[in-house]
C-alpha cells in the first residue's frame, strides 16, 4: 500500500515562503493569485494491507514526527 502525507501550515500561521512565491508569481505576470501556502508531501510504501490499520499507523507517524501539530495540519491519502 502507498501512503501520501500532505503537511500544510494551519490557518492563521503566517507563511513567509508562501508569500514570497505569491510575489514571484505576480511579478511573472500571473494575475488573480491570492493566499499561496507552501507545504510538503511525504510518500512511502507500507506492508500493511488493512486500510484501517494502515491509516491508524500513518496517523501515529504524523503525530510523532511527520508534522508539528503546533503549526501544521496533515492529510493522509492511501492507495491500495
Amino acid at each position: 500500500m502507498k501512503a501520501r502525507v500532505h503537511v500544510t501550515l494551519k490557518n492563521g500561521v503566517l507563511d513567509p515562503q508562501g508569500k514570497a512565491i505569491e510575489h514571484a508569481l505576480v511579478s511573472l505576470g500571473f494575475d488573480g493569485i491570492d493566499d499561496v501556502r507552501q507545504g510538503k508531501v511525504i510518500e512511502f510504501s507500507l506492508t500493511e494491507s488493512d486500510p484501517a490499520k494502515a491509516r491508524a499507523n500513518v496517523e501515529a507517524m504524523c503525530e510523532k514526527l511527520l508534522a508539528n501539530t503546533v503549526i501544521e495540519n496533515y492529510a493522509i491519502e492511501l492507495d491500495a
Partner: protein
Amino acid sequence: MKAAVIVFPGSNCDRDVQVALEQAMGRHATGGEPLMVWHKDRYFDKVDLIVLPGGFSYGDYLRCGAMAANSPVMKEVVARAAKGVAVLGICNGFQMLTETGLLPGALMRNADLRFVCRDVTIKVETGQNLFTANYAQGDAIRVPVAHHDGNYFADDDELAGLEDRDQIAFRYCAPDGAVTPEANPNGSQRNIAGVYNETKTVLGLMPHPERLADPKLGGIDGRPFFDGLVEALS
C-alpha cells in the same frame, strides 16, 4: 556542579558552550569540565545541567530539531527534565525543545526569509534564580544571533498563558531596553527570544550567550549568564 553537552551530527556550537561553561566553572570553585554526550548514547552520568547546543543537527531535515527530538539520547533528556534537571537549549537546541514538547510553541522560518547573523539586544523579561541569576528583570543584554528559523510562534491562547505564568524569558529589544518591532530580527510573536517551561527549569533561547563569553570572541557580555548558572547549580 556537573553539566553535559549533547552532541548531534551537525551541532556546531557544542565546543563553544563547553568552553563557556568550563571557564565559568573555573571561575567558580566548582571547577571541572562538562561531559560531552553523543546523540546515540541512551544513558550518561548524573548531571545538574543538560545543554542542547546550537547548530544544524541532522542537516535540519524535515524541520529544524525534529530529528534530534527523536534521537536515542533525547528520551533520557526528557525523562531527566521531568525530574527537574535543568535543561538549556540554545538556537537549534531551542528548536529541539519545542519539537520534544518540553517547551511550548514552534520556531518557524524568519519572517523576511533571511538568515540573520549579528548582535542583538535582549531584555530579561522574567528574572529568576537559575538561568538569569546574574541579571535583574528588565536588564538589556547584548547577545549574538545566527539563525534562519527563529521566528517564534504560539497561538493566542498559548501566548496569553505564557504571559500569565511569566514563562517569557527574553524579548528582543532596542539597546535602551524598549521592545519595538524594529528590534525584532526574525518576526517572532511579541518579540519573544526565549521561553521557560512551567517550572522554569527548562529554558530555550535563540541568541547565543556562549558566542560572547571570551575576550577573543569580541566581548564577554555572555559571561554573567554562565557564571550565574554555575553559581545557582553549585
